[in-house]
């Protein structure tokens, strides 16, 4: 199983292309919030950016907290989501230790990363990667990598 990792956020330019892509392609919405990855400035614009996204817990506290089975454990970490079962209680978001789940204030549905990787090709600086779940699962996320980002091309 693959998981999404925001492993090179030092290179991030704060374009929000990743969030917009997830919202557009996975959730069919125009938004930078209702997405599995969200970008914020790490304490004011002058200190760079950080990504709020699922770190693929195994076991996943959000799945344990979910009373309906809408969130269930995904093999390799993270969760599988069945939106039709969701009763919009918000327990998952409360249980997540890294604030990876966004509750849309309009409909109260949770938005979380499903590790599909569709945002990855839209990052112009190769900050994101789809990695093997068991590879580099420790604190050290693989350093700077060798790619130069932009030279990967947009797609």
């Amino acid at each position, binding site marked *: 199983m693959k998981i999404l990792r925001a492993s090179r956020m030092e290179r991030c*330019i*704060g*374009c*929000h*292309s990743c969030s*917009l892509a997830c*919202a*557009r*392609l996975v959730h*069919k*919405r*125009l*938004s*930078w*919030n*209702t997405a599995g990855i*969200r*970008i*914020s*400035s790490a304490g*004011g*614009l*002058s200190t*760079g*950016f950080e990504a709020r996204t699922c770190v693929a817990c195994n076991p996943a506290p959000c799945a344990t907290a979910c009373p309906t089975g809408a969130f269930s454990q995904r093999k390799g970490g993270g969760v599988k989501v069945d939106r039709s079962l969701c009763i919009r209680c918000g327990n998952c978001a409360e249980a997540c230790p890294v604030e990876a789940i966004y509750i*849309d*204030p*309009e409909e109260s549905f949770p938005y979380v990363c499903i590790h599909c990787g569709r945002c990855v090709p*839209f990052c*112009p*600086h190769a900050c994101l990667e789809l990695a093997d779940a068991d590879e580099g699962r420790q604190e050290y996320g693989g350093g700077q990598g060798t790619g130069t980002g*932009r030279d990967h*091309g*947009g*797609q």
Partner: protein
Amino acid sequence: MRIDFTSSRVLHVDMESGASRVISFGTRSAHLGGSGLAAALYTEYGLADAPADDPRQPLIFAIGPLTGFFPLMSKVVCGFRSPYTGEWSESHAGGRLALAMRFSGYDALMITGRARSLSCLVVGSRRVEMHDVHYMRGQDVFTAGKYMRRFGADRHGHRSSLRIGPAGENGLGYACINVDSFRHFGRMGSGAVMGGKKLKGIVVLGDGSFTLPEGKAYPALFKKIYSDVTGTDMMRKYHDLGTAENLLVLNELHALPWRNLQQTSDPQIDGISGERFAEQLLLRQTACAGCPVGCIHIGLLRQQFASDHEYLYKQVSYDYEPIFAQGSMLGITNASGVLALLDETEKVGLDCMSSGVALAWAAEALEKGVISEKETVVPLRFGDVHSFIAAMGHLVRGTNDFYRLLGQGAAKAAAEYGGEDFTCVLGQEMAGYATGEVFFVSQAMGFRHSHLDSGGYAYDQSAKDKDVDKAIDFLVDDEHKRVLINCMVSCMFARKAYTPERLQEALSSLGMTEAADALTDAGRMVQRERWRLKIATGYDVNAVRIPKRFKEVVTWKGPVDVAYMDALKQRYARAILDMAAAGGGEN
């Protein structure tokens, strides 16, 4: 939420009464958005007969129908009566504002009236709040930004923060509005308009989300445009050295203004070239929200503040124009010196181009004895960073009559003290292109008196002949294409990617077929409408003059041809009057 594309959704806030209301405004296929929407709103709500500084005059921020939907649709048009010229004007900025406005659910924000006490406005998809911020009076842009973080703190990272510095509060003619630290509504004094409304800051929370059109057309077109702007070399220049790469190029061409345009080239260029900045001071690049190019170059300013190896560091954004205005124009030949000046300008909330060029005039005027240190207070000298930083302080505080006049533009100071021949003013303080006749005429007479109205500087560089009709046709046609871009509102750097046909495709993919079909005609109407408004608010195209300094310029092509420039001027004046009148009658 669902977006209704047939009209524009406008939030009107009146600072005087504190009341606000949402207006469903106009017809999309007529005003399009951005530039066209701002002009249409002014026509409806503006006071053509009242002066520019009447607080009832609207200050308008407008996005376009494609904002947020496509890459580089990341800019906002600010429309206002300019305190500098008195006329209807525009300034454009990016940062996070365009997306924040899109996600707050408004196509435009229109502000009228003057608040009783210094205020900060907070706007989101579910709130409109006015906060009394009397304690922020006189605060610099950075400090104000820090205080403003408390507003809408629950939407961290997804809000935009606009604020003015003391320059805006004190009504300087070229006070800017800072957007998210590194971007600006710069020229023509929008900051003073905000100050006149006692509006210190605006926070826009982009906290809503919207349903997308069904079908594959939209995501497919997005992908295509995205790979055009990131996968090809089209945008390379902007994220590589950035626009600062132009310094060497223009210096080489003898088209870079130095020391108040007394020279157009200098061997000391290496100290302030884009290459020098990139190699020694570039920290990182950043982007406007929604733009994968990331052209914003941030430089490191390291300053010693005490003798014992005690340093502080700051992050200062740079670009070609700021380096010209506060570098070569002031005779500064050291990149860190330029950053120090830019940092000061940023802090007080002045437009860096106008203030640099105005101070360059003051330095030459002092050198020539037209004015004395009684006026300048500090011994302004080309190349002396510290004297210019000190002068910036006098300018913002308006410490004497001289600085108060200079704060309204070099031409106004020169009218009083002399030295008009060498004011580098073309409608407003010049942009960094001493490329020749076509550019000088296009800035002097153009809609925004900017290098962004049309590509006159590029025309100067490519034209092989001196065909007046051809040159003016180019300016008019290029302006039309840019009007379309400014209505959507895309970054100007994406103008090659967003041809009129591409814009039509994009509008259609979102279901706006009527606007797509009407696009070119509507663009002509907006172009006309902008000229009509500029003229109705005081612009006399026949009164434009080009100071002597521009007639003495020598470029790679040789000395400026004054007869050609005069002919261009006559012809462009006619073209502008024709545009303003075209299809007219109803007004």
